[in-house]
């Protein structure tokens, strides 16, 4: 039975990778799961310099979801390269580095810095506010998406996965812009922007007022967007958004995703990633499906 999938020439032993920001660089969760059993580890977003992130509270629970406004706290690319990459290289899994920045040049600096590192794929978080454009996210403007994609593509030594924001009118417009810019793959969806108010305190639940909504609550939106994008562009897709079980993951694969990211589920169940990978195999066995490629995009 074949569970391997290929994204931009990189073969993952199975379609399950981690969701950026939920799994650190894998060290903490390696006490719970065997990273060798994952298709890949997507690291927490890393910037050209250390970011301190937002004040607390940084998270709030919502119905079948959670809001987060961590603010992309990260130690910066130098520490990441000397500490986190060597840690992940101990494992037989693909290393997918998530990259964030406040300007195109920030992103370029990180991507260039990673050029000679042993990482397999780069995932570009374009939901960060574009400081030059007064804070609207890169991912909400098709011209900005195409521009940053092509700028990074010129410099990247590894294939680049553009991570799309769902906070847009037409996700396929953003997907086509990334494709036009030369993206090797897409990942979606990032979080939906949300807010929670503490009614007793009459105050925002998050210090940042708004945060990114993740978890099963957003899965129907994520599956819909993955389906739309899979039918709009010719790029492999890493699907994500509220995947808690193997059946959730299979929804994304059937909608057209080549791989899936498991994020928030790690907080509910630290074993989620490996259990989902095993559950997909079990489904294939039960249904006599010998190659996972037969599942990808099978619902039209």
């Amino acid at each position, binding site marked *: 039975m074949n569970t391997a999938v290929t994204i931009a020439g990189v073969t993952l032993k199975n379609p399950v990778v981690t969701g950026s*920001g*939920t*799994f*650190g660089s894998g060290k*903490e*969760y390696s*006490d*719970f799961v065997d990273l060798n059993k994952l298709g890949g580890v997507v690291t*927490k977003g890393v910037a050209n310099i*250390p*970011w*301190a*992130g937002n004040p*607390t*509270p*940084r*998270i*709030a*629970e919502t*119905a*079948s*979801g*959670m809001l*987060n406004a*961590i603010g992309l*706290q990260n*130690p*910066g690319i130098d*520490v990441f390269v000397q500490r986190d990459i060597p840690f992940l290289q101990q494992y037989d899994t693909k290393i997918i580095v998530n990259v964030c920045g406040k300007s195109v040049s920030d992103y370029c600096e990180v991507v260039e810095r990673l050029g000679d590192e042993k990482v397999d794929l780069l995932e570009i978080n374009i939901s960060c506010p574009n400081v030059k454009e007064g804070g609207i996210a890169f991912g909400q403007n098709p011209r900005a998406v195409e521009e940053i994609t092509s700028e990074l593509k010129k410099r990247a030594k590894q294939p680049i996965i553009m991570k799309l924001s769902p906070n847009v009118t037409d996700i396929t417009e953003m997907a086509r812009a990334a494709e036009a810019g030369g993206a090797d793959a897409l990942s979606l969806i990032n979080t939906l922007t949300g807010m929670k108010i503490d009614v007793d305190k009459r105050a925002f639940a998050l210090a940042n007022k708004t945060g990114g909504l993740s*978890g*099963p609550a957003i899965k129907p939106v994520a599956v819909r967007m993955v389906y739309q994008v899979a039918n709009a562009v010719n790029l492999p897709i890493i699907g994500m958004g509220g995947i808690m079980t193997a059946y959730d993951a299979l929804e994304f694969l059937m909608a057209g995703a080549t791989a899936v990211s498991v994020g*928030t589920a*790690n*907080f*509910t*169940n*630290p*074993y989620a990633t490996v259990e989902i990978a095993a559950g997909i195999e079990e489904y294939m066995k039960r249904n006599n499906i010998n190659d996972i490629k037969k599942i990808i995009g099978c619902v039209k």
Partner: protein
Amino acid sequence: MSKAVKKNVAIQKVEQLSSDIFSMYLVDASIANQAKAGQFISLYSQDGSNLLPRPISICEIDQEEGTIRLVFRVVGKGTKEFSKLQAGDTIAAMGPLGNGFTLEGQKAILIGGGIGIPPMLELAKQLHAKGVEVQAVLGYRDALFLNDEFEQYGKVYISTEDGSVGTKGNVIDAIKEHGLMADMIYACGPNPMLRGVKAYAMEQNIRAQISLEEKMACGIGACLACVCKSKEKDAHSHVHNKRICKDGPVFYCEEVEL
């Protein structure tokens, strides 16, 4: 370092201590054997709409019995669900988590405020067993809980906001009223109380270990939700943030900005 696992654990009993405070005993030898005073356990709701575990500080550890006691306040759907569990039920739990207190000194003041009181009980027990003089200062809004159980380990001083019992005011008022002295302060409670404790400890030049609380997601140091501001650049984060769930919840008061 303790190796945490998530698993279903048997509940020995659940008792109500006050209108909204409950005491739950979990049967698990490996957790009991690893657990330290000041560590916490993440409890998971069975309701599918609650994704995040609830971190609950460890109130007592019984290694012979292989049980741990958790005392928590009902503040929402999750803790409400926990309060309704009974002997014979199981609950998904992960732990022990966090660093816990370091037992030092000869004469200690243990300060607990509200739901910060429970972790002080195991600490009082262990300090007392080590021959450290325990002075417990417990601050309540109104209704008391657990205070009797501290008596066996040392003197107990109480403050209540409404003055119904002990010193009217906060824990620092009680310490001053009784002129308590110590070579080590241990404290757990709301941030305003901890700010007061830190100021008092600095001014009195007494070392203080304080246990912090913040909204948590992963509970193991991966997600960076529950950070606190650190005085120095942190060795792991490389910014002025420490992870309460992993680097804490206990810090020496001079390490953190409150």
